[in-house]
């Protein structure tokens, strides 16, 4: 049973083909306003499609203009960005709500809900009100509530965005474990590349409503195809035309590759492999660069060059450079990856 969708909505100009296999976790990764949440809402049935389709196996969920299955009749579990727990119910009642709504008896619903609270590790708060929970606890309750009805499709909207950094770190690995155990189809929406990489089996990059790249986290991280993704994974990305080891970049500059390539290529390289020197050298891939910005980036200093490339330098090196004087930047051809 495959979740097969072509999500087309006027709002955000969304046009997104999406296929999710059982047990697979697909992350929709993109900047704010790319249409990720809109896509999720169409899958949940909270927003009808203008065109396209959503099918689970042979069951149509949305197929304009004829078919539209209301959200309460879809076998989905949704975890909302700010969880949307019901404040007037206890934690246990929150988790049992979906089961009760689908006709399970009260006692059975409560016992199942408690099992889920045990699974996610917040059973001791079963009788508390959601308002009294910490962010991490509320996140787990929301997950338990979404999973309690054993949905076919699990939808997560920015599942970690509401958490502080320390909690986030811990909850992320936990969530990854729960998602691995979940046998259904998972679609998660995030703007955080790390969340996407850790949680998902496959990434779908969404920019302005359109898919710009899709692939395994590893593939996307190594071969970014748009500036947005390159920036997310921390690589420099240049575009040009290769003829053997010589590349003429779109901005007119030249690069020399270690391995030959042909035609339109993306050239990616790590900012760590860029070096800066006050002395001009004759080595390949050396150019005169002007510094357009400097910022502290973890344990290195990130230096922006000509607004196109950035170099990560150890602070000790930075101390020896005078950014007001001419500088020469260079990259070893073997550090360049063309594809």
């Amino acid at each position, binding site marked *: 049973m495959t979740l097969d969708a072509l999500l087309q909505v006027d709002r955000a100009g969304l046009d997104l083909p999406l296929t999710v296999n059982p047990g697979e976790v697909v992350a929709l990764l993109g900047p704010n306003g790319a249409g990720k949440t809109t896509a999720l809402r169409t899958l949940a049935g909270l927003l009808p499609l203008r065109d396209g389709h959503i099918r689970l196996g042979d069951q149509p969920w949305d197929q304009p203009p004829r078919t539209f299955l209301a959200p*309460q009749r879809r076998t989905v579990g*949704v975890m*909302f960005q700010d969880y949307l727990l019901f404040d007037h119910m206890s934690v246990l009642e929150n988790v049992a709500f*979906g089961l009760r709504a689908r006709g399970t008896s009260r006692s059975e619903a409560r016992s199942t809900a408690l099992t889920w609270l045990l699974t996610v590790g917040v059973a001791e708060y079963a009788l508390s009100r959601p308002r009294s929970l910490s962010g991490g606890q509320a996140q787990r309750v929301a997950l338990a509530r979404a999973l309690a009805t054993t949905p076919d499709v699990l939808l997560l909207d920015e599942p970690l965005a509401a958490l502080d950094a320390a909690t986030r770190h811990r909850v992320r690995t936990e969530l990854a474990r729960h998602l691995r155990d979940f046998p259904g189809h998972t679609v998660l929406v995030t703007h955080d590349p790390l969340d996407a990489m850790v949680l998902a089996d496959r990434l779908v990059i969404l920019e302005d409503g359109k898919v710009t790249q899709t692939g395994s986290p590893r593939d996307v991280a190594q071969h970014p195809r748009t500036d947005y993704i390159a920036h997310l994974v921390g690589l420099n990305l240049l575009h040009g035309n290769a003829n053997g080891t010589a590349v003429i970049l779109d901005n007119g500059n030249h690069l020399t590759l270690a391995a030959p390539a042909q035609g339109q290529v993306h050239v990616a390289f790590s900012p760590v492999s860029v070096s800066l020197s006050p002395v001009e050298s004759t080595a390949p891939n050396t150019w005169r660069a002007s510094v357009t910005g400097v910022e502290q980036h973890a344990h290195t200093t990130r230096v922006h060059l000509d607004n196109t490339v950035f170099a990560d330098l150890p602070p000790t090196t930075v101390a020896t450079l005078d950014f007001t004087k001419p500088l020469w930047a260079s990259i070893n051809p073997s550090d360049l990856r063309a594809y």
Partner: protein
Amino acid sequence: MNKRRVSKGRLPVALVLPAVVGLAFLLVPLVGLLARTQWADLPSRLFSAEVGEALQLSLVCASVATVVCVVLGVPLAWLLARGDLPGRRFIRALVTVPLVLPPVVGGVALLLVLGRRGPVGELLDGWFGISLPFTTAGVVVAEAFVAMPFLVISVEGALRAADHRLEEAAATLGASRWLTFRRVTLPSVMPGVVAGTVLCWARALGEFGATITFAGNFPGKTTTMPLAVYLALESDPQAAIVLSVVLLTVSVAVLASLRERWVAG
């Protein structure tokens, strides 16, 4: 630091002055009423049959009218806040008409429709032998007509302010719209419903114009406290003052007890 505390502590005169005048404006007439009350007569008047009858009738009718308003008004508020019916703004404006309509005119309107010559009243009379004017049921109808907008406006405001994404969450959990309304929407707007109910009850308790016009005035049947006060004013202003003080005390007591219960809960 010090200067800052001072400037924070001083309230703007432009606000305080009108506020104090406004408060005085509301309270002074009440104080005047209490000052003119002949307290010595109070017990004897209080326990007279007429006062007891009128008070009991007032409380029963206002409460029944409030129940009617809640049963009909909460769904109406929901429809106005959530339903995608055409002309919703226009309907909302219509709902508020009884707020601005002089109650006497409301009473005449009720007579024209529900009176024995009115289109609905004729049917009620012909089919079921029910005649509303000059009956206790008529009092309830008149009070509900005038008081319902208070409830609808209050509940609708609460519904609009409530996070409707909670309802979406309920839907994704498999809840029908009715279950969502009962278990999610209604509890989340409960403070608004309570406030609206209290307002509605208070308005019904003080209702005069529509009641006397539609239901008439007959002791034990349709003479509620405000009617008794008005008629007493014609012949015996002291009695009117006592009746007013009773009405005032009862409503303040009920509102205060309600409030405490809900604040504690």
